[in-house]
């Protein structure tokens, strides 16, 4: 099976370890991974900030970059949700019929990583080893956007050495919300404080999620509080083995 990796601009630029882990994990499971280098950003930030025309242009670009891919896999619930929920609508803004059709066709072939593992590959035990106490934050786009349900937990439960601890008020947003974190910084920070408090209450060493953006936010708060709790993307946990623990750890 061959897939094209949609790594997302955020992971590409700031969190390459998450992208590397996704590649290593998929290859270990026998999947051939391609990385179309033309990809940049899915347009989520522009769309959610009120810049729909700009977002439509970026969406068209991304769809073109993946036009030949049989399946597109991304380690981001929010970017997958962006493609799935908004691309068909954004396509209406694109005059070029072919480009618009490519945008409308992308959602059906796009999978968030845990969806791909559980639904397409049919695996839950990915052969990972990660000897740490971990709590899982179900990011909003995974929980309510994609409805990934317990797929991430099913994967985590099969990781050897991993102790999974439940996060209180897990379904509450961490307060990131893209430009919301800057435009409404005080409200965002109040939400973050509550999320960080819930994470600390679990006694976990690591907080994981399906989105580097949420982890950047939660991690930014945890580090400011000098909590000693790390944030690690789920792909990195699933990629870790005895022989190859994640390099960043």
């Amino acid at each position, binding site marked *: 099976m061959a897939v094209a990796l949609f790594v997302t601009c955020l992971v590409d630029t700031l969190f390459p370890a998450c992208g590397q882990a996704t590649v290593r994990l998929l290859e270990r499971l026998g999947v051939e991974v391609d990385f179309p280098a033309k990809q940049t*950003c899915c347009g989520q930030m522009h769309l959610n900030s009120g810049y729909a025309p700009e977002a439509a242009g970026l969406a068209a670009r991304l769809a073109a970059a993946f036009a030949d891919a049989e399946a597109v896999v991304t380690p981001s619930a929010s970017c997958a949700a962006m493609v799935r929920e908004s691309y068909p609508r954004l396509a209406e803004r694109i005059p070029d019929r072919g480009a618009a059709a490519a945008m409308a066709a992308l959602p059906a072939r796009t999978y968030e990583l845990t969806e791909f593992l559980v639904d397409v590959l049919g695996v839950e035990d990915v052969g990972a080893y990660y000897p740490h106490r971990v709590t899982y934050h179900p990011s909003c786009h995974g929980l309510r956007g994609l409805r990934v349900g317990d797929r991430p937990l099913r994967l985590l439960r099969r990781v050897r050495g991993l102790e999974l601890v439940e996060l209180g008020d897990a379904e509450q947003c961490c307060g990131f919300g893209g430009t919301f974190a800057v435009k409404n910084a005080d409200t965002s920070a109040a939400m973050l404080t509550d999320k960080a408090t819930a994470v600390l209450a679990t006694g976990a060493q690591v907080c994981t999620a399906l989105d580097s953006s949420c982890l950047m936010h939660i991690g930014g708060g945890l580090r400011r509080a000098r909590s000693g709790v790390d944030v690690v993307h789920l792909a990195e946990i699933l990629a870790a083995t005895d022989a190859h623990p994640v390099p960043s750890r």
Partner: protein
Amino acid sequence: MTDARPFPAAARESLADSQLRHNLAVATTTIRARRAAVVGEVADWEGLRRRGAAVKAYSLEHLDELLEQLEASVTATGGVVHWAADAAAARRIVTGLVAATGAEEVLKVKSLTTDEIDLNAGLAAAGVAALETDLAELVVQLAGDRPSHIVVPAIHKNRAEIRDLFARTIGPADLTDSPAELAAAARAFLRRRFLAGGVTISGANFAAAESGAICVVESEGNGRMCLTLASTLITVMGIEKVVPRLTDLAALLALLPRSATGERLNPYTSLWTGVHPGDGPQSFHLVLLDNGRSRVLADRVGRDALRCIRCAACLNVCPVYERAGGGAYGTTYPGPIGAILEPQRDSLERRGSLPFASSLCGACAEVCPVGIDIPRLLVHLRGAEVDRKRGRPLEGRTERTAMAILARAFSGRRRYEAAQRLGRGGDRLARARGAALRDALMGPWTRSRELPVAPDQTFREWWRERAGEDDRGRS
């Protein structure tokens, strides 16, 4: 309604009030759990939601015909219909009607619509005292405050605060904070006024065009007293409240209480049709209020906000509302529904910051009983606000510049990779300019969070290195 400060500034103030945050967190957590429990009991909640959404969507599509039909039905059953284009017109009509009865005091049934048009102030200016009879509305009125929640107007106050208020205003001074005692104090204060049977002013939850029946739901029975004991009843209703037939209420009356208070049924559902000799109010006036609603209706996407049945479920699950409180929105309708309704009904000029007062977490859309895709409307209105400012060079320029730079950086592989290198600190000059922009944008972030540390290598650099080929330049 009077506070048009941008949301972030108002929220900053309310966030600092730890008592308020505590009260809200306790209250919304309780209502959330109650709602979840009774919604869970319904075998086909999603089907019920779809039926509710369909009734409201149909009614909005046919609003003009339904309103004319409603006017005819109400008139035929002995009521008088008045049309009010805006708040001032509605105030004028209602004050005129009250003046004609000679009443100096009127009783109010809990109504958001009359808050929206600032009716109490209008009546006061005409020398008429309006007394709120809903317990929480009474609390807010006695405190000289504004409601901060659609269903629970005094949600921002705890029992101890209400006890102090009652002891100070309506007595007795030795009141405790037991709910029964507080309710008894309010009852003693209100009951003799109900029995005087003068003029009552209400809002409406629903109206059935076919029969002219008006529906008000409430929990305490005070509304029922006012509605039945009054000699004159004046109902102020937003035009979006009309549905075709009484039977259309079946789904809505099942959705509303479960969503609003976590009750299976509303304790009091009052329905009346026109005037009946010797029974109930002998004079009935229905004021149909537009006040910006037809403007909302004109927007094919934004109009979904008019489906709202004011259950407040979206407020109770909203993490922004829970922390900033209803006051921060500065509007009659706060929370997610306020953030999608008020910028349209009032104006973007005054309420343009509200669609941005959301992390787009989607909790609201998940609970909305009439299936309003609130995050989609928020994004739609953000677009409208950004477009409005595009025509004004001086407003929102920093953000527009940043977004333009980013859109351009993302618009091609070469430019994108160059921007990545730049971000890591290649070109000195460009970095200095970038830093100024970044500080302007990221200052609020770093007040409470660390920024991530840029890695030595981007993902794509790693990928290329791994593939053992350097195809930089090909595009």
